């Protein structure tokens, strides 16, 4: 583990990514303890104040929005929704996708075909529209958003896990386990699962980045988490109307999304280099 960490940090970009991710996770967990203002407290006298470095004498580090709310506090609290949705949605899609992939890879006959079919169906549907439509009908709430994102993004896991299982099941240790009469469930969970875990970790890390963007896009369109909770997407949507005279309102939460996603992607990329044996071969 320590050795892996050392190898991970030999890449300076990946180290920067890891620091960014840790800072965001810290903000998400301890946000309410470190923010200087209540993120929902309005102050009409202080509306649309520019960030401090713009020469404003105010007390608001990153300025205020149209209702006089402190942008720094809102950005810090906004990390909660992004991280929570990103991680939870990935947990759901990895469980569904890996389970399906294991079954389809081990019992290739019918499950495999059904899986390929489901994959092609999912790839043919413009995902964004489907997510929006479902969010519009079932109503937007934190848990609905997590469920929608989780249940519409699992095919990638299934495809990769299935492909790896098709190779693994021909190997001696799986054949032997089968001969010994070990139950299929046991083979799937104890013998196949550990062998596909590194691919699952790589896919998950890169998917978290995508989920964060999806969540903010849904919130931006007003179909995400209800606006009482500050999220980066809704902050940008609100700031969009003041883009002419108060650029910072829409710009700052966007930078937060961008930096977080770059950080997650850098970490995911490094994990892919280290864990994916096929790629390592090609790269070296």
């Amino acid at each position: 583990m320590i050795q892996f960490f050392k190898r991970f940090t030999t890449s300076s970009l990946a180290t920067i990514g890891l620091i960014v991710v840790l800072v965001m996770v810290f903000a998400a967990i301890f946000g309410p303890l470190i923010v200087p203002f209540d993120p929902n407290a309005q102050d009409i006298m202080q509306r649309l104040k520019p960030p401090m470095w713009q020469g404003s004498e105010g007390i608001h580090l990153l300025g205020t929005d149209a209702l006089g709310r402190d942008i720094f506090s809102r950005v810090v609290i906004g990390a909660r929704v992004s991280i929570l949705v990103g991680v939870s949605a990935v947990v759901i899609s990895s469980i569904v996708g890996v389970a399906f992939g294991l079954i389809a890879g081990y019992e290739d006959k019918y499950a495999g075909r059904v899986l390929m079919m489901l994959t092609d169906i999912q790839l043919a549907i413009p995902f964004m529209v489907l997510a929006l439509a479902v969010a519009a009908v079932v109503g937007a709430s934190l848990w609905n958003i997590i469920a929608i994102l989780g249940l519409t993004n699992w095919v990638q896991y299934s495809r990769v896990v299935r492909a790896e299982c098709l190779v693994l099941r021909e190997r001696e240790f799986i054949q032997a386990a089968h001969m010994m009469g070990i139950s299929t469930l046991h083979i799937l969970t104890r013998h196949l699962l550990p062998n596909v875990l590194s691919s699952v970790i790589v896919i998950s890390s890169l998917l978290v980045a995508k989920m964060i963007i999806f969540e903010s896009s849904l919130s931006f369109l007003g179909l995400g988490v209800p606006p009482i909770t500050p999220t980066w997407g809704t902050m940008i949507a609100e700031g969009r109307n003041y883009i002419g005279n108060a650029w910072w309102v829409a710009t700052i939460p966007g930078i937060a999304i961008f930096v977080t996603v770059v950080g997650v992607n850098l970490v995911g990329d490094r994990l892919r280099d280290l864990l994916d044996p096929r790629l390592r071969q090609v790269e070296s």
Partner: protein
Amino acid sequence: MANFLISRLLYTVLVLFGVSVAVFFLIRIGGDPSALFLPPEASLEEIERFRALMGFDRTLVVQYFDFLGRAVQGDFGMSLRYNQPAMQLVLDRMPATLQLGGAALLLSLIISLPLAIIAAAKRDSIFDRASLLISIIGQSFPAFWLAIMLILLFSENLRLLPPSGRGTWAHLVMPAIVLATYSTAIITRLLRSSMIEALSSDYVRTARGKGVRESTIILSHALRNAAIPTLTVIGLQVGALLGGAVITEEVFAYPGVGRLAIQAIANRDFTVVQAFVLLMAALIVMINLLVDLSYGFLDPRLRKRK
């Protein structure tokens, strides 16, 4: 080849059938939309009459097969909001979206092809590192925010480009850039690694041994072999482009199908959403079928296998 083509076409029809099932039932899990179309003071009888008129009073399965039977004949129902055939509404907006999607795809190919080829040919050079960084950054932009930032820069501050609408080429510049960003990142990264794989293969070593010029090796030997996985991804990117068009069109108030879809969702105009998703799915499935068929032209070995 003929057998292959027929089985692929049948499979395509099956996939479209699956898409229609998924879309039909998913957008109905919230119940029927009668209440949204009638004034709040509507009486129970009025609601019942409206439901009977629209067919909402039947079971979902019956409604689905009714819908499917009509759809096969090209009738996708009337838009509940505009009182026009739903498919016609979508088709009318299609040219605008195809123009935008085409411009974006062209832009991302112009940038990603040379970038990936040079990065693979000169591995670990500054150029290669730059291409990796660009592909990570390109993947990380939330499209709607990038759009707003471009509007802030080019429309608000520099006053060079119109912030919204459609008409001249100037209207197309910012939406095309926003839409191309993600695809450029994905194509660059994949073509680079496919090129690296191809360049380290035996046939390239043989060609080098024979004294073939390096530019010929890169452009005709390696690129042709790297083209197959890249083409697959470009095919899949068309789906992403059409999906991404939804948000891009919304921010730039660009009158394409994506904006229509968002408005239809906001209005709960089911028939338009259905028509939109099915048309997009048909388009995506067809493009991927063409990509599959093109493998045979790119790689003669695959022709025999089929």
